Every structure is written in structure tokens, then in C-alpha cells.
């Protein structure tokens, strides 16, 4: 099935806008996606029709909002094939979800002399929490290297698992810089065989392809709603028995069963990990985003992006001074990071903006990965459901303009 990109663009009010008199060519969805009317309307409807706090009220609108909030949890569980909605924890973003695991599980399970394994292609969100846990605990932090071709060097993992000291392997399901999809299922098998848990960063994968947490073999997986047409809310999924055994991350209202003057008992899952009033409208908006994406079909979305990114790689090869980071073979999701000879990525992004083309420039929260390639920064174009080959053409035309302005 072909994606009708023109029809999809009409669902996103922002594309009615002109930038410097030009059509908006938004190629920065890997940072945050645009929002369809369905999501904006769902949040607006809640605020104008049935807003109250969740879980406490005994009146009609409080019951309505609680029902909508909990329905979303069930919807998200189905979306990632989690066995139990109680395993779906609403957090602020993927970063907070990963911090929750590093603090709550990490503090109680990682000790001095243990090892934490991550990959060289991690986003800072799945890197710094583990780096700091290792420093707090006197544990070792080891990296699975990335090859020159931008692929994970998987044969580096078995030696790191051999001595049984590795407690956790943290890896991204899809790199936000390389677009690469590391063999996470294989990594999970190897880690589990060595008695280690696997924490996956799904922030880039979940918006773009069907993800089944059980098939992946993950123990925890975190992702962000704002990269998948939803608002600013995040989800942490974890296996029930692990979550049950973990101490709370944040303390306060809603996460307790009883509070006495000198002790407290914790609420059941998932509420144990949802202290305080949650981002109610955002959670409901995320439910609308899941409906929106599901109606299109994750497989259709994935196939469409493969087509657009293949075309992008082909057209970018026309510019001899432009170099694409990462593999040209193997699977690549809709992210293309690149650099140009003697031109700073910030200048690329600024000149592209003049043509209405939005790309990101910098290290994309993956500094160790850029260090590994000896690049201080790259420019990144990322594609989503509202992008098509015309957008790629607009990008390439604008890049030729960059060369004509700066490439002397």
C-alpha cells in the first residue's frame, strides 16, 4: 500500500505555514515530529469537555478523564505488544524512563566491580545515566564499538559477557545519528544467556516501525511520545516481575497505598512509578497519536520511509563534497547524517532554513559517536510520514545553494 503523503500533510496544520515565503520542508522529525489535528483535537477536547485530575474524583468528568487516561495505557500496551497494561509507565520522556531504570533498578542491582555494557552509538539519554551509575558504584562501563561503516561490532560483546560480571546491556533499537538498527534481539539473547538484563532505547524505532517488545527480548524499553506525532510525554515499559521488585523512583502522591507518620507502603503497578499528577492531556494525546499511526499502519510507514531514504541517499551522492555517515548497505531507517568538506554544519542548517528546509546540526546528543568518527558535528535530515521525494529534491537543491555560497 502506498502512502498518500499529500493527504497526510493536510492532517498536520503546521504545513499550512510558509517559511521565508517557501513551503515548509520539515526534515527534523528524529528530534521531534509535527502533530496531526487528531492529536491536537484530542487534547483540546479533553480540556474543553472533561478535564479533572485522574484517579481520585467521584464525579462524572473525573471518571471520564480517568477512563480515557487508562484506555491510553491499554492502547500503548497493544501497540508495542506488552503483555500487561500495568507494565506501561507514563513518564516525561524516554530520558526519564531510562533514568528511572538506572536509578531504581541500577542502584539496587549494580555494585562495585560489576560491569555495564552500552554501545558507542547511544544517544546521551541511554549513556549518561549508565555512565553516572558506574561512577557512583565503582562499576566498569564498557562500550560495544561501532565500525567505520557505522555498524555495531557485535563480536566485541561475548568477551564482555564471559566473566558473568555484566549486569546490564543498554542499547538503542535504532541509532538517531546513523539510522542503523543494531541486532538487538541477538544482543538480548547473548545478554540473557550471561545473566544480564537488556535496556532498550526505543525513541527512534517506535515512531517508524512495528515494535514488539516481547519479540525483541527486551527487559525494559523507553520511548518518547513527541517523536511519534504525540505530545511531550514518555513511556517506560518493563517486565512485570522486574518492576514489582524495584523500589519507587519518585515519591509522593498517587504512588502510595498508605502513609503513616514514619513509614509508607507503595501502590501497585504501574502507579508505584507515577508519583504526582501525571501529564494527563499529553497521555490522552499520545493515545490519539497511536490511533493515528495505527490507522496508517506501521508497516506502511516503514516501507514508505525506506523508499524516501533510499532516494535521499541516491540524490545526496550527487554532491561530491558531501559525505554520509554510516552504512550504505544493510538496513537504515529514515535518518541521514552528513558532513560537507570545509563547511560547518551550522552554516548548512542556517542556509537551508532560507529555503524552508529544516535540518538539525550538531552532535545530536551523541558526542562519543561523533568523537569516534573524529567529527565535531554533522547535519542531519530525518524523514517521516509527511515527507516524500519532493522534500528530498528540495533538500538537494538547497544543498547546492550551500555549495554555491560557501564552497569556494
Amino acid at each position, binding site marked *: 500500500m502506498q502512502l498518500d503523503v499529500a493527504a497526510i500533510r493536510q492532517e498536520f496544520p503546521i504545513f499550512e505555514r510558509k517559511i521565508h515565503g517557501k513551503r515548509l520542508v520539515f526534515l527534523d522529525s528524529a528530534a521531534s515530529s509535527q502533530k496531526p489535528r487528531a492529536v491536537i483535537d484530542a487534547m483540546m477536547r479533553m480540556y474543553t469537555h472533561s478535564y479533572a485530575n485522574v484517579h481520585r474524583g467521584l464525579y462524572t468528568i473525573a471518571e471520564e478523564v480517568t477512563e480515557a487516561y487508562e484506555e491510553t495505557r491499554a492502547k500503548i500496551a497493544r501497540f508495542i505488544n506488552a503483555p500487561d497494561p500495568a507494565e506501561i509507565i507514563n513518564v516525561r520522556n524516554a530520558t526519564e524512563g531510562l533514568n528511572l531504570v538506572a536509578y531504581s533498578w541500577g542502584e539496587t542491582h549494580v555494585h562495585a566491580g560489576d560491569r555495564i555494557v552500552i554501545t558507542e552509538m547511544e544517544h546521551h539519554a541511554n549513556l549518561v545515566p549508565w555512565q553516572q551509575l558506574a561512577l557512583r558504584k565503582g562499576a566498569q562501563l564498557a562500550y560495544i564499538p561501532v565500525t567505520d561503516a557505522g555498524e555495531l561490532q557485535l563480536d566485541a560483546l561475548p568477551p564482555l559477557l564471559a566473566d558473568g560480571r555484566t549486569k546490564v546491556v543498554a542499547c538503542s533499537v535504532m541509532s538517531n545519528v546513523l539510522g542503523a538498527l543494531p541486532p538487538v534481539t541477538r544482543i538480548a539473547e547473548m545478554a540473557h544467556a550471561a545473566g544480564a538484563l537488556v535496556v532498550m532505547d526505543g525513541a527512534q524505532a517506535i515512531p517508524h516501525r512495528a515494535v514488539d517488545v516481547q519479540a525483541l527480548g527486551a527487559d525494559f524499553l523507553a520511548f518518547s511520545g513527541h517523536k511519534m506525532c504525540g505530545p511531550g510525554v514518555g513511556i517506560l515499559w518493563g517486565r512485570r516481575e522486574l518492576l514489582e521488585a524495584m523500589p519507587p523512583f519518585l515519591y509522593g502522591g498517587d504512588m502510595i497505598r498508605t502513609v503513616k507518620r514514619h513509614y509508607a507502603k507503595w501502590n501497585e503497578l504501574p502507579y508505584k512509578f507515577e508519583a504526582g499528577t501525571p501529564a494527563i492531556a499529553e497521555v490522552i494525546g499520545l493515545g490519539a497519536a497511536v490511533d493515528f499511526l495505527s490507522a496508517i499502519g506501521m508497516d506502511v510507514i516503514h516501507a514508505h520511509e525506506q523508499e524516501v531514504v533510499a532516494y535521499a541517499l541516491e540524490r545526496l551522492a550527487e554532491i561530491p563534497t558531501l559525505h554520509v555517515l554510516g552504512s550504505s548497505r544493510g538496513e537504515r531507517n529514515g535518518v541521514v547524517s552528513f558532513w560537507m568538506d570545509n563547511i*560547518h*554544519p551550522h*552554516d548548512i542548517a542556517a542556509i537551508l532554513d532560507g529555503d524552508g528546509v529544516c535540518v538539525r546540526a*550538531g552532535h545530536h546528543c551523541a558526542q562519543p559517536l561523533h568523537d569516534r568518527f573524529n567529527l*565535531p558535528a554533522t547535519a542531519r535530515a530525518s524523514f517521516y510520514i509527511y515527507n516524500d521525494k519532493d522534500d528530498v529534491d528540495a533538500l538537494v537543491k538547497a544543498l547546492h545553494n550551500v555549495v554555491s555560497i560557501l564552497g569556494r
Partner: protein
Amino acid sequence: MSSDLYREQLLDHYHNPDNFGALEHADVDIEMDNPTCGDVIHLTARLDSAGRIAEVMFEGQGCVISMASASMFTEHVKGKTLEEISAMGLTEIQEMMGGVKLSMGRVKCALLPLNAMKEGLKEKQ
């Protein structure tokens, strides 16, 4: 925006910077970077007997804004006292760069040479 940002004057400084290199026996010698964008500048300066900036050189790599700013900065600050340097801010840098309008994201690039100089003078004291 971009046509204004990439005007000829700034591009000339970017492609053919003034005072590019490093001074020997400098009073100020500092390297500073913008970690978020990877701009790096190595700034060296000599002061005269009255304590004014006599000579400035820079080397480094970065975007058009940071490099053009550094190039213009090396001439702009000659003869200035340390007090005058410490009083300098974004407005003066923007004026120095021909009144260029900078977006929030580019302000740090333009300020890199000034911040390096301020830091270098502080280290010297």
C-alpha cells in the same frame, strides 16, 4: 535571514581571516570551544605597557559566524583596556559584525572570541 547572515563581508572574513595564527610570548593564551557545535578557537594576545590590547591573533575551526567574528574581533579590540573588554557584550559584537541579526542558536558562535578573551584575561590576573 540566511542572505543577511551570509553577506559578503562575513564570508570574506571567513575565507580570508585577519590575524590568523598564534603569537609567541603572548600575555593571553587560551583555547575555548563551543561543545554543542564543535567550534574551537585558540586566541593569543599581547598587551602594551599601558595594559591595552596591542596585538591579537586567533586560530581554530568553526562556522562562518564564529570565524568571521574572531577575525573582526582581532582588529576591533586593539587599543582597548581590560575594563573596556569586560564591558563588551553581544550588542557590540553584533555592531562589529555590521549589525548582523543573530538567532538564539548563533549567539554563542558570535560570542566565542569575546568569551575566550575575557576568560584569558581572567586567567592572566
